[in-house]
């Protein structure tokens, strides 16, 4: 049978099965089990309404239990075994002895800070800039489009952008094609040193301002907000400080490094930078998500607070940073943590582009390496547990925030 036809049948049977389940089970509940007629009509109706949520939740709960809860415990058990023997924490200690594991941890931490920061910042920028223009919706759809591309598909696209050919051949990679246009003259100075230098300097200034803005209430000793706000401020300030440090090292590099003009670069095998080239892919994808959510949040900011700020003499920047952004802070936090969870699970991009070579390994790909290439079930499960431990607190916090937002 044609695979397309098979897929169609699966879709029809799957969707039809779901609809059929909900419709028929509901019918059974209302007509047979607790019919809303006869002497017990009132009692039956309230009983049926008590059972109905469980009826609808039942398939989801079974599927989640089977495919999510059970594997967690099975994996935890596997991580304590080697070749069918219980070995306690031996798998973990072996893993902690591997430099590749620590490389993955380090890279994951870098991803964890850079990707959510980049996606949220660009998303916020796009949301604000497209808000009041006529073709804003068109721009938004274009920025959102990468969300529709799978991570592997996006990786293939970006692998072509980073592609390298020998110097005598025509470059098919966009980045190298652009790079080879520079030959070290005045244009190169302007576009490769001055412009990025100024941009990085501006970002650096913005980050330092953010650090100051986040920490100022602590220094002043004001008591607006509880423990979580305090913790959020400190974490935010540390993240901003780390990013500022990264940018400062870039600035030094932009100012001082000799650039190898005329040579095609193998972008993906440049240690340190190649991680950023991989992150660019995920930022490119997640910016659309951040933009859509933040755009809705920005529209939800009461117009009259903006008008009041206008009357108070605020300029557009002050309105944005001091009136709009603080009011959508809960949404920014939710977007940030949601992207953080995506980042912790990042796997496809690294697998498809470098497979963890040249110091780009991340935890999920490390786990895949151990589980399905080395067939080491013990260490693979142990690394899976580490990922879960990292994701869980963020997930809990995210759910807590999202629920608070909804109330």
């Amino acid at each position, binding site marked *: 049978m044609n695979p397309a036809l098979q897929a169609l049948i699966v879709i029809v049977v799957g969707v039809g099965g779901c609809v059929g389940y909900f419709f028929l089970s509901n019918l059974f509940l209302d007509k047979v089990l607790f019919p809303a007629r006869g002497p017990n009509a009132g009692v039956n109706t309230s009983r049926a309404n008590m059972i109905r949520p469980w009826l609808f939740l039942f398939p989801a709960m079974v599927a989640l239990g089977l495919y999510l809860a059970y594997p967690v415990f099975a994996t935890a058990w596997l991580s304590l075994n080697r070749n069918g023997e219980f070995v306690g924490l031996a798998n973990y200690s072996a893993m902690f002895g591997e430099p590749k594991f620590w490389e993955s941890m380090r890279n994951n931490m870098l991803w964890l800070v850079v990707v959510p920061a980049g996606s949220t910042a660009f998303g916020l920028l796009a949301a604000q800039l497209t808000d009041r223009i006529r073709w804003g919706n068109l721009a938004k759809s274009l920025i959102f489009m990468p969300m529709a591309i799978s991570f592997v598909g996006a990786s293939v696209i970006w692998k072509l952008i980073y592609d390298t050919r020998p110097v005598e051949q025509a470059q098919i990679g966009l980045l190298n094609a652009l790079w080879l246009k520079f030959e070290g003259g005045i244009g190169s100075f302007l576009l490769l040193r001055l412009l990025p230098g100024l941009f990085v300097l501006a970002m650096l200034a913005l980050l330092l301002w953010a650090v100051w803005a986040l920490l100022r209430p602590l220094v002043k000793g*004001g*008591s*607006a907000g509880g423990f979580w706000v305090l913790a959020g401020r400190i974490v935010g300030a540390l993240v901003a400080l780390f990013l500022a440090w990264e940018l400062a090292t870039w600035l030094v590099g932009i100012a001082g490094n000799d650039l190898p003009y005329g040579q095609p670069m193998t972008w993906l095998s440049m240690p340190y930078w190649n991680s950023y080239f991989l992150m660019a892919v995920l930022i490119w994808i997640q910016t659309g998500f951040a933009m859509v959510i933040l755009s809705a949040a920005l529209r939800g900011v*009461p117009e*009259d*607070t903006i*008008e*009041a*700020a*206008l*009357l*108070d*003499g*605020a300029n557009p920047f*002050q309105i944005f940073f*001091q*009136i709009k952004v*603080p*009011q959508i*802070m809960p949404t920014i936090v939710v977007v940030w943590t949601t992207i953080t969870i995506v980042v912790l699970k990042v796997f496809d991009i690294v697998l498809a582009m470098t497979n963890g070579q040249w110091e780009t390994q991340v935890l999920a790909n490390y786990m895949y390496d151990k589980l399905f290439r080395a067939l080491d079930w013990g260490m693979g499960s142990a690394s899976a547990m580490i990922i879960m431990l990292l994701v869980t607190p963020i997930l809990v916090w995210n759910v807590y925030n999202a629920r608070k937002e909804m109330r």
Partner: protein
Amino acid sequence: MADLKLVDVEKAYGEVKVLKNINLDIKTGELIVFVGPSGCGKSTLLRMIAGLERITGGDFTIDGVRMNEVPPAQRGIAMVFQSYALYPHMTVRDNMAFALKLAKKSAAEIAAAVDKAARILQLTPYLDRLPKALSGGQRQRVAIGRAIVRDPKVYLFDEPLSNLDAALRVATRIEIAQLKEQMPNSTMIYVTHDQVEAMTLASRIVVLAGGGISQVGTPLELYERPENEFVAQFIGSPSMNLMPGEVVATGAETVVSLANGGMARSAVPTQASDLGLKVNVGIRPEDLVTTTGEAAFTGEVEITEALGEVTLLYFKRQGDAAQVVAKLPGIHAELRHKTVALAGDPRKVHLFANGKSLLYR
């Protein structure tokens, strides 16, 4: 010192003119109230004065300086919004200090201004709270405080009391009146759809209708000498009874024979040429009294509403004429389903021809 002047101001959205021919002179220290039915443009006019809406025609000046193109913050105005528009993420203190911080005032200056405003509005204990921890009335006072700290020349109020409950509305109304007393040199413009607020607060009321100004005057001028039928019916509750008729005698006292068969006498003078003029006789419900002599209106009482101090009598409609309402002092519930004859004191009987009062010819 702030004299506001609007000359031929208009507002158009594309082809549609929602406001036109707005001419208004507002003197320093006045409290002007804009009233009018929903959609008459009173809030739009206020927002044009604030600078939140563009003025599409005419001139708006403050102390002789044209303000049409001046950004809102530099017009020397402060506005209190209907929804308070407090910054939800700032404490009461920061809400009030925001404008001063933006204006780069010194910390001592800001603290002094905020403390003074807080003292006037009894907000001192709440300075470090967030708006969400305040009651509606307190939020309203913070919104007013935010205006006061800026020490503006002109205060704009956009239906500031409409989100408060009835008891608080009365209390806050009195507070605003006291605030005005304390600041005799500030000019205030106040938008409301509530007549009681308009009548009690205003030094002058501007009645807006149909995209223009219907009448400007002190509250009692508007009540006693309405320029047209719209103002006559808009001011006062229940609204003025209008009964069609024809002038049968002219002079210092005009006599009108009404279509319902009654006779009305009015102290509005008419000339001999007015004989036979079709007019509407306007008598406020509270100006109607029961009579045994010549009656302007005789009819059967359909419903009575006894409020204690007064009783409202709603009469059965006669043909397609508007329902007549009378407001008699005291309790008269027994008048239901009785036939009652009513007349008005000639000094309180208004005459309108083609919608305009004969007083203003």
